[in-house]
């Protein structure tokens, strides 16, 4: 209560264009204007990034001052009178725009983001610019197309540095920066490298999403018209257990682009390469028709009726004890219910998970508020997990906490990761020496809100040793809270599926070999590798050879589908409906974005007709 009264007394009041407005002390003029529905044009400003004040579009007049000031970077003062639009401001803004237009090759007809998504173009229209008073410079500038999914055309760049700030403040890698001076000023990657050579770029694509012009463009989106003309559907990413919200742009039943959903409490608009690009911009061979092995042993396209008849026949020939089902840990919760209802008809159901992940999944515990706890932490301990590889959005958040908010970072993992460079303590092998643990304790001393992110490899004896030592340290560290535990599996929906009663198995070989099988149904669903991952395991290819009927239910062709007796096509993430549960225990909805491709059917519907 006390703080609230203090806040109210501290409020400042000012007039903007004659309208009485109020705000918190320290708030910028732009923030207060926006909160009061007063429009001020901007180009380099972006909510959530540090103000830059570089583009000078947001200039305003303050009564009693001869200067104009950038409203995005100027704190409002109590009692000041602000004017956001006047002939003088209009002239200055026009001149700024004309200089921007003259400086580089802003040729709209041949811009990949033409027709309406460009901030510069929009401001040109808004200020009625039909021609400019300066000489065009036509500089020869390079285009960097070496990044896998996007390009950077310096000709379109207005040096607003939104990409630089995004890269530094949201993804936290600071790949992008600005080099050279004056007219030679330009955005650079690492130390004057190309994207393809960059060691730090994570391909998260946030720079593309936040670029106000066509300087950064997605290759798969280029020249496909304005995103504003696309239908937008919100759905959930199923590539990892973080469960980021996706905003999918669709035109003529094709995905034009995927952005993070800014209103998602999970990712707040940020995405990683998996969600933003691998979901749709990656060419994969989709299975759109059921396939059945003919007399010569070749897979041939067939009808659903024939494929299902063959599957049911094989199913009837096998005894209950000779039937098993293996599922990918990414199917929806609704599919899991169907699977559990069918479980009585077969000997065993299992989901194949990553190495050491079974223990994490089989004792499912969701880490409620994991992402908030992480953002609150002053010390982050990562054990046996590689968030920057497996869950890059979470990895980015860890990076930001360490780089921007001074959180301590301790990593205990046998594999190297790009988070290691930011770590205060980084141990690839765990030492039992006192000196080492004294160092860990010294690093954690004074930590008030620690968070422990533990992945599959924390379930190994070494991981448990680390955990025990840490618990001892935290018991001695009296001032701080108990560490927030964040269990981080690799599987997208493994925790919820295990919770529904499906056993997680990491050694598929021995599991298949428990009792001889005559009928194996593999639900690979829309796993990007088509379920071929289980082939990596020893003995599995040989064991599959011995099973007379292997039904593979998958979306993409792979080494696994090539071995199958029958292949049944399933829907992919953008055609599915249902829910998945993320690592925090949030139920997140999948919404069908596109019509189903070919004859593919939903996982649950296929399972019901196979085991009917």
């Amino acid at each position, binding site marked *: 209560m006390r703080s609230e009264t203090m806040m109210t007394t501290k409020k400042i009041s000012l007039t903007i264009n004659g309208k009485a407005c109020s705000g918190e002390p320290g708030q910028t003029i732009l923030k207060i204007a926006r909160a009061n529905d007063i429009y001020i044009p901007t180009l380099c400003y972006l909510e959530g990034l540090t103000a830059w004040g570089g583009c000078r579009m947001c200039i305003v007049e303050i009564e009693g001052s001869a200067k104009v000031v950038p409203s995005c970077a100027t704190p409002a003062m109590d009692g000041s009178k602000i004017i956001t639009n006047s002939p003088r401001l209009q002239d200055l803004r026009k001149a700024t725009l004309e200089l921007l237009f003259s400086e580089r090759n802003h040729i709209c*007809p041949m811009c990949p983001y033409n027709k309406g998504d460009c901030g510069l173009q929009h401001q*040109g*229209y808004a200020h009625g610019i039909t*021609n400019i008073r300066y000489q065009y410079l036509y500089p020869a500038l390079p285009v960097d197309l070496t990044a896998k999914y996007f390009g950077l055309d310096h000709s379109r760049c207005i040096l607003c540095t939104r990409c630089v700030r995004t890269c530094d403040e949201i993804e936290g890698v600071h790949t992008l920066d600005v080099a050279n001076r004056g007219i030679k000023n330009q955005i650079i990657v690492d130390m004057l490298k190309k994207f393809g050579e960059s060691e730090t770029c994570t391909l998260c694509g946030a720079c593309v999403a936040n670029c106000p012009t066509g300087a950064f463009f997605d290759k798969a989106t280029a020249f496909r018209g304005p995103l504003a003309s696309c239908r937008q559907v919100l759905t959930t990413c199923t590539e990892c257990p973080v469960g980021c919200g996706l905003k999918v742009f669709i035109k003529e039943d094709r995905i034009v682009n995927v952005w993070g959903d800014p209103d998602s409490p999970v990712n707040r608009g940020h995405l990683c390469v998996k969600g933003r690009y691998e979901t749709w911009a990656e060419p994969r061979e989709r299975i759109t028709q059921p396939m059945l092995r003919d007399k010569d042993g070749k897979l041939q396209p067939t009808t659903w009726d024939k494929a299902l008849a063959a599957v049911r026949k094989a199913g009837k020939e096998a005894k209950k004890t000779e039937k098993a089902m293996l599922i990918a840990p990414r199917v929806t919760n609704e599919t899991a219910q169907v699977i559990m209802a069918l479980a009585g008809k077969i000997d065993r159901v299992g989901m194949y998970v990553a190495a050491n992940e079974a223990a994490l999944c089989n004792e499912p515990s969701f880490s409620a508020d994991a992402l908030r706890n992480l953002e609150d932490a002053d010390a982050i301990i990562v054990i046996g997990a590689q968030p920057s590889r497996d869950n890059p959005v979470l990895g980015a958040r860890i990076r930001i906490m360490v780089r921007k908010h001074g959180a301590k970072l301790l990593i205990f993992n046998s594999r190297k990761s790009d988070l290691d460079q930011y770590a205060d303590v980084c141990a690839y092998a765990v030492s039992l020496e006192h000196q080492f643990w004294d160092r860990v304790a010294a690093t954690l001393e004074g930590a008030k809100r620690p968070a422990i992110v533990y992945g599959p490899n924390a379930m190994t004896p070494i991981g448990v040793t680390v955990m025990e030592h840490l618990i001892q340290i935290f018991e001695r560290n009296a001032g701080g809270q108990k560490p927030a535990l964040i269990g981080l599996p690799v599987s997208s929906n493994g925790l919820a599926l295990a919770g529904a009663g499906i056993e997680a198995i990491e050694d598929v070989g021995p599991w298949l070999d428990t009792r001889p099988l005559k009928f194996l149904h593999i639900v690979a669903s829309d796993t990007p590798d088509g379920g071929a991952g289980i082939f990596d395991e020893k003995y599995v290819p040989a064991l599959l050879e011995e099973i007379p009927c292997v039904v593979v239910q998958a979306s993409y062709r792979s080494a696994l589908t090539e071995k199958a007796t029958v292949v049944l096509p399933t829907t992919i993430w953008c055609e599915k409906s249902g829910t998945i549960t993320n690592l925090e225990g949030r139920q997140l909805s999948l919404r069908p974005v596109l019509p189903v491709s070919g004859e593919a059917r939903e996982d649950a519907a296929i399972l019901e007709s196979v085991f009917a």
Partner: protein
Amino acid sequence: MNKMTRNKTTKKSTRPPVAKAAAKAGAPAKVRVATMWLSGCSGCHMSFLDLDERLVDLFKLIDVLFSPIVDTKVKDMPQVDVGIVEGCVNNTDQEHELKMMRDRCKILIAIGDCAINGNIPALRNQFPLKDCLARAYEQAESNRISCIPNDPVVPGLCPKARPLQEVVKVDFSIPGCPPDADMIWYALTELLAGRTPQWNEKNLRYD
């Protein structure tokens, strides 16, 4: 609308639709217009033809005396009120023509992005002239004989492709690639009515 009143006056006049005759009869003189096509794709002229039936209304107010899209019998460009130019200045001949146009018209309108900022023809400005010529005449895959034209009759390529305003004074600009017929209609009718076109988000397009 002002346009309507003007239409009425021309409708009332039974004189032949020649500006001079009309002027003699006391009816308002038609605005004399010439158009020119420099380094461009003719898209802006096509867009002008896209005015469709509005052309009939427009021709009640203007006479197009000289243009690549009218069957002119005059060899030399006459004095006009308004000159409309598409395309940028790429060679010495175009520079000469544009300067002639500027001399013989009262108001010069640059139409289309090429005339305004160089657009596609100006892409070559990023490379030295020598390289451009070599790429087109010596290295082009379709060329059987590699030879840069050097006949004095052929106009020389300027070192840079230039928008009109870098060569002459331009009075109005109608951007767009091409500007759509509505933009051209709006700009011309406003100018004919004696007003300056007011451009904003709703009626302006660069692409």
